[in-house]
């Protein structure tokens, strides 16, 4: 690094202070926003950080002029944060940034319109990102990572500030999405409930007023929550909303939405085209789709077991999709039985509607799945109970008696009964 003189450092700091004060005085939200984005590693902020570390007494500069000192509560800790960040001390960087943000919020409340929302967004984002990195630092030092949790509480406070009647309220959804990201990362997704309720039931909020970008993100996360709770129709609705409103160029985002939408669609009997899976690199679903089409239980089971691909299964587990995929087993059974029925129908239409249990056992044996009569009987009972098969089971004769009409009803967009 080239030598940085005191004079040059002084100049950079004063320059920043001027831009800061001007941004506020001229209500220039975009400029102000750029002045806060610590984690972006922008050259200007990095060079400012270097200057601060050389100059070391920025507080004096701040106090020198009324133009700067009125924002001292915000800028002083922000400078400290930037310095710490530059030196790789993420924990302190977060702490100072939170302090600066706190002071910023106090100012923000007093400003009339929503001109500073962009800056607020940047701050909300930085709070989360810096907290994540601080936690990583804590964890690597054997300490307990608690900054992200703190960030969550802080953002709830910010949410409170935005939840009012004025024009600032359109910012609430962005903050909500940051909160979602935090809660999902921490695994405390149950905390999402309170903020969701605020958004969806408070009269001050009109969902349509929010920026489209935030709406898509919101629907993505709430859709994921529905997946976790296995409310498939709701999950379908929300994730589909996210998909249709997501800008086509954002391929990574579309992939993320599809990752959850596909299992949901599978659960309601809708299969994706192979092309789609390939376009968005979701080939881990290939085997599962195949298994459903063919009634191949063995294929489904192996797709969900780690001897096939450990990494994929762990991903399924972590994302919560695993349980959804597992439930597809019943649909695979249904498909298998339907195939048996079709074959029987070809051989002898008059007797086709009666399927002997032992025939099913044999079919499963061909798939290298060993199940005894009792187990198969149980599966058959469950299939009938959940309306995947219409008919009944005669225990004495060990025969499934299928209804003559539509013995294998389609799901038609409804998930299998619980």
């Amino acid at each position, binding site marked *: 690094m080239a030598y940085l003189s005191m004079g040059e450092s002084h100049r950079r700091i004063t320059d920043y202070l001027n831009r800061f004060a001007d941004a506020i005085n001229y209500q220039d939200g975009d400029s102000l926003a750029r002045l806060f984005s610590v984690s972006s590693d922008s050259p200007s902020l990095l060079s400012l950080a270097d200057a601060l570390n050389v100059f070391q007494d920025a507080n004096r500069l701040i106090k020198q002029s009324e133009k700067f000192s009125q924002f001292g509560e915000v800028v002083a800790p922000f400078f400290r944060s930037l310095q710490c960040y530059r030196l790789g001390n993420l924990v302190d960087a977060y702490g100072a940034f939170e302090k600066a943000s706190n002071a910023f919020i106090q100012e923000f409340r007093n400003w009339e319109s929503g001109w500073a929302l962009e800056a607020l967004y940047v701050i909300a984002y930085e709070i989360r990102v810096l907290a994540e990195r601080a936690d990583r630092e804590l964890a690597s030092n*054997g300490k307990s990572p608690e900054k992200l949790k703190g960030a969550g509480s802080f953002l709830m406070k910010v949410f409170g500030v935005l939840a009012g009647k004025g024009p600032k309220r359109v910012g609430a959804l962005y903050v909500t999405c940051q909160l979602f990201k935090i809660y999902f990362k921490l695994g405390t997704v149950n905390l999402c409930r309170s903020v969701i309720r605020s958004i969806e039931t408070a009269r001050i909020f009109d969902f349509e007023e929010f920026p489209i970008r935030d709406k898509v993100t919101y629907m993505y996360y709430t859709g994921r929550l529905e997946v976790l709770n296995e409310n498939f129709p709701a999950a379908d609705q929300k994730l589909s909303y996210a998909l249709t409103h997501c800008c086509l160029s954002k391929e990574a985002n579309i992939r993320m939405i599809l990752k959850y939408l596909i299992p949901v669609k599978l659960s309601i009997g809708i299969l994706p085209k192979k092309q789609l899976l390939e376009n968005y690199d979701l080939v881990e679903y290939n085997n599962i789709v195949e298994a459903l089409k063919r009634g191949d239980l063995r294929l489904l089971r192996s797709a969900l077991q780690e001897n096939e691909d450990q990494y994929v299964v762990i991903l399924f*587990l972590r994302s919560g999709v695993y349980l959804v995929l597992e439930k597809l087993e019943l649909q695979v059974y249904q498909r298998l039985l339907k195939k048996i029925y079709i074959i029987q129908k070809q051989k002898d239409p008059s007797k086709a509607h009666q399927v002997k249990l032992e025939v099913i056992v044999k079919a499963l044996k061909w798939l290298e799945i060993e199940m005894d009569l009792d187990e198969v009987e149980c599966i058959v009972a469950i299939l009938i109970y959940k309306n995947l098969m219409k008919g009944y089971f005669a225990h004495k004769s060990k025969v499934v008696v299928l209804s003559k009409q539509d013995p294998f009803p389609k799901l038609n967009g409804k998930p299998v009964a619980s």
Partner: protein
Amino acid sequence: MSPNNAADPMLKPTMLPKSLRGYVERAFGRYKDDDAKRAACEAYMKDIITEARADGTLYTRDWDSEPLFTVPDSLSISKANIQTPTHASIPNYNKSPVRRSKSRWEPLAEEKMLEKPVSASNEIGKYGSWDRKTFSGYSATKDNSLSSFRFSGPQQRTPSKSAQRPMKRQRIVNGTGLTNNDDDASSDSDKEQSLTAYYSGAMALANNPEEKKRRESRSKRFDRGQGHRPDINYFKPKNAGPANLYTRRASALMLSKSFDDSANQAVEDIDWDALTVKGTCQEIEKRFLRLTSAPDPSTVRPEDVLEKALLMVQNSQKNYLYKCDQLKSIRQDITVQRIRNQLTVKVYETHARLAMEVGDLAEYNQCQSQLQILYSEGIEGCLMEFAAYNLLCVILHSNNKKDLLTSMSRLTPEAKEDDAVKHALAVRAAVTSGNYVTFFRLYKSAPNLNTCLMDLYVEKMRYKAAVCMSKSYRPTVPISYIAQILGFSNAADENGETELSGLDECLEWLKAHGASLITDNTGEMQLDAKASSSTLYMPEPEDAVAHGDSSLAVNDFLARTT
């Protein structure tokens, strides 16, 4: 900051157990007129509730006895027995209501604030319990059976060891998170309320000279409040269990570095070894008496005696209450002496197994959480056995999908090869898919104590199976078949008496659940499937008792053998 406008769903009355609602009311009732405090109170309640949900104690904790916390306030003064070095109040074994008088461990926010002069008792340490559960030191709830143990930290405080410098305190100001750094230590010291003492596994010491003198003369050990985060901090540390003393103690020195420097010196100066009690008591049998003051070494048993004590409990024929009591006493002796090794693990494993056998889930959960911590420190034990129990608990008891997924994704490949774990995973799959045949087969072949945990779900599974069969079978199902697949038969292949009793049991069960039964022309009992599909129902549990366990009678029967 204005509290969030929308009502917080987590605090909605319908979602919480009744005793917890009472607790919440009491908590809020104290701050009727103070909005800022109410907001802080709300935030704190949320944390407590979230925490309780997360570790499964939401419904098992005794909220009636759970002491209330204080919202820090620049005005509130530590309410304590001011000058007189009174003894700590005698522990309540009864579940007394929260409004205890004179408990020096509880901030008595309900009473009027006394405007005592600055130099008044600096019971800083009083609130310095780093653990919310500190306050429940005197409640007889099982959850907090170890909460008294954290006193064992800075016990015999020798004057030479305490740090002497006045600490720079930061005052926590009315809920806005803004602080004023106040260099006047003496005026701050009494105003310091350390709710934030959660992190004070590192003890920071109260430092003005008067307090030191008082401390010495009392020769009591209190936890010292440390911690003055710049913002209000109601966060609970991850493992705020009762005896998390040691995990935090070990990293306390490091943790403390994140606070004010002036506090650090105090912690590092403490000679931990000198403070540990080394017991001399030789009694193998010892009842559990919750510690109220520094333990007298002659009442604490050393490790070798504890080994014998554990053996005695394991071989004893007496009932659970006796064993539980003995084990708690052993646990206390272990904690007080900071013994953290295989003996510790064995004690917790023993207690956990016993608790599970009798269905004492609260105690089991406590032990299980301790075991997880001990295992993670590398101490040997029956990891797989308890990993399996953990899984089963998540599946069968809490049914929290997120927890389940996390537990499953964290299993090591080695764990997945273990029989007990495999069994647990198979049970999970059976429960998820509603496969009753597999479930009851697994029930019969369950290793270790997996059956005890499966017992939690047997009733539900049988009912689901009955409903399923009523819908799918026509016209009838033999009762003998049902008895066999729903796990009613005893010891698989025995004929004669054993089978008959299984059949009878099944019949009883079906009748109790409204099944329609008929006898066919060969005299065999059958389930009338079609009729049953509309008559089956799940009856109310008959033996529900107020305190939850109908086998616990009121009389003292610790020595009774059952």
